[in-house]
């Protein structure tokens, strides 16, 4: 490292900034205008614990203007050291709010996981399942560990390849692409009582450059 770069990037030892004021709020992080986060009472505490125990790290949100709540479970334990899998594996779950039901669309209204429809990624045991980005109103870009990158159409609950060309095709010509093989969709209740299938995932392409 050059002396100039060192001076630019190093922290001034012994001259650390004084502890600043408390953060302006102890609440949740800001989210962009296009994202509505599930509120703290979205599930009961017991249901939230159950979901975390079954599906691991949970993310939950809705895209503004859309009528689907999206829940992602990474399939990895929140407490065990390392990337330890959870009994239910990784999932993407979607709840539709029929007819713009304002109660359903309210992030602070408690509901049950049984109202969600659940899908598993092309490699159900691949973990962690990671949301990388959102494209358009209903396409999620997800990393399915070493199985690769996939896009998921929230409207059809189908999985597609995750290349930029596949995402573009999904956005511009929806319904005309060939989906990837994946396990059948099930209800939230069924998913909580079902372990992910074992065996070699058919939809995992060979990975170059690894």
């Amino acid at each position: 490292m050059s002396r100039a770069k060192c001076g630019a990037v190093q922290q001034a030892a012994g001259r650390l900034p004084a502890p600043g004021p408390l953060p302006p709020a102890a609440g949740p992080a800001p989210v962009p205008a296009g994202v509505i986060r599930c509120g703290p009472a979205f599930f009961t505490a017991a249901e939230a614990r159950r979901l975390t125990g079954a599906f691991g790290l949970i993310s939950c949100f809705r895209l503004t203007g859309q009528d689907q709540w999206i829940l992602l479970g990474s399939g990895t334990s929140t407490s065990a050291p390392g990337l330890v899998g959870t009994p239910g594996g990784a999932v993407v779950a979607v709840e539709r709010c029929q007819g713009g039901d304002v109660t359903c669309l309210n992030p602070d209204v408690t509901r049950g996981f049984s109202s969600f429809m659940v899908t598993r990624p092309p490699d159900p045991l691949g973990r962690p399942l990671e949301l990388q980005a959102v494209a358009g109103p209903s396409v999620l870009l997800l990393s399915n560990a070493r199985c690769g990158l996939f896009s998921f159409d929230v409207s059809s609950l189908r999985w597609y390849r995750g290349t930029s060309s596949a995402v573009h095709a999904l956005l511009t010509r929806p319904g005309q692409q060939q989906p990837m093989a994946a396990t059948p969709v099930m209800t939230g209740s069924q998913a909580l009582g079902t372990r992910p299938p074992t065996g070699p995932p058919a939809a995992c392409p060979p990975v170059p450059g690894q």
Partner: protein
Amino acid sequence: MTRAGVVSFLSRHGRPSPVTGMCAALVLGAWAITALAAPAAWAQSPRYTVKMQDFAPGAGYPGTPGKVVEGLGLGSCLYSVSRVEAATVNSLANSYRTVTEISPQPYCVASGVPGYESKIRAIYHYVESHSAHAAAYWAGFMLDEEPGFGFSASKLGTLNRYVASLMNASPGLSWYFTENQPNGWGLSTYNSIVAGSWPAPQVYSVSMANAVNAECSTYGRCMNDVTVDGVAASPWNSPAHVTGLITGSSWHVSAWGGARLFCNIWVPV
């Protein structure tokens, strides 16, 4: 990795120099002092005062003081090099404090690490040659290097050494962060990946928090730009809650204002 290992890591072309060693020692010393100075042994101190947050190339900027271009995997994945370049330069043109995030994945760039080196070098040269604000406002790259993204630790180490040597020549503060899942690797492996970088670990769970604190107590790397998942289940979407679990200090550099102490917010964009 030992301190000597960190010194070696920071050197160019694998040849440690006295200046390199001195700088690495200063940086490590600062981190160690920060850790020891923490009055409450189980919370970042100084704690964050401001946030950086990601945005998609071409989309609106977040309202946070730090802006992170979410460049994703490049290659056959979202986004193209040119879009990432433009997003970075446009953000800098507004005098925004800017970071350029890339998520290296072998299924996006078939040529693997050499391909990423080429793309990162292209972005670097474009930004440096098209922005008068880069020296002051560009903190460089944030490499999202998660175990599930497909590259081995040794390949990530190769990429990081390259990025370190590349950024070493930049005129300003620009350097590189490593966003990572600290519990996804063994401790020594995690340390070898993040060594030399500004760590920006994802802390989405107790397991991740424990791994970050183990890195601090074992290797003395205690300054973290902690990454918080903005759509995680409560309370993991709260920066105050998450950083309250982490030892050491929040990330800061004098060039960006020493009183600006950052945490990093990930949101789906």
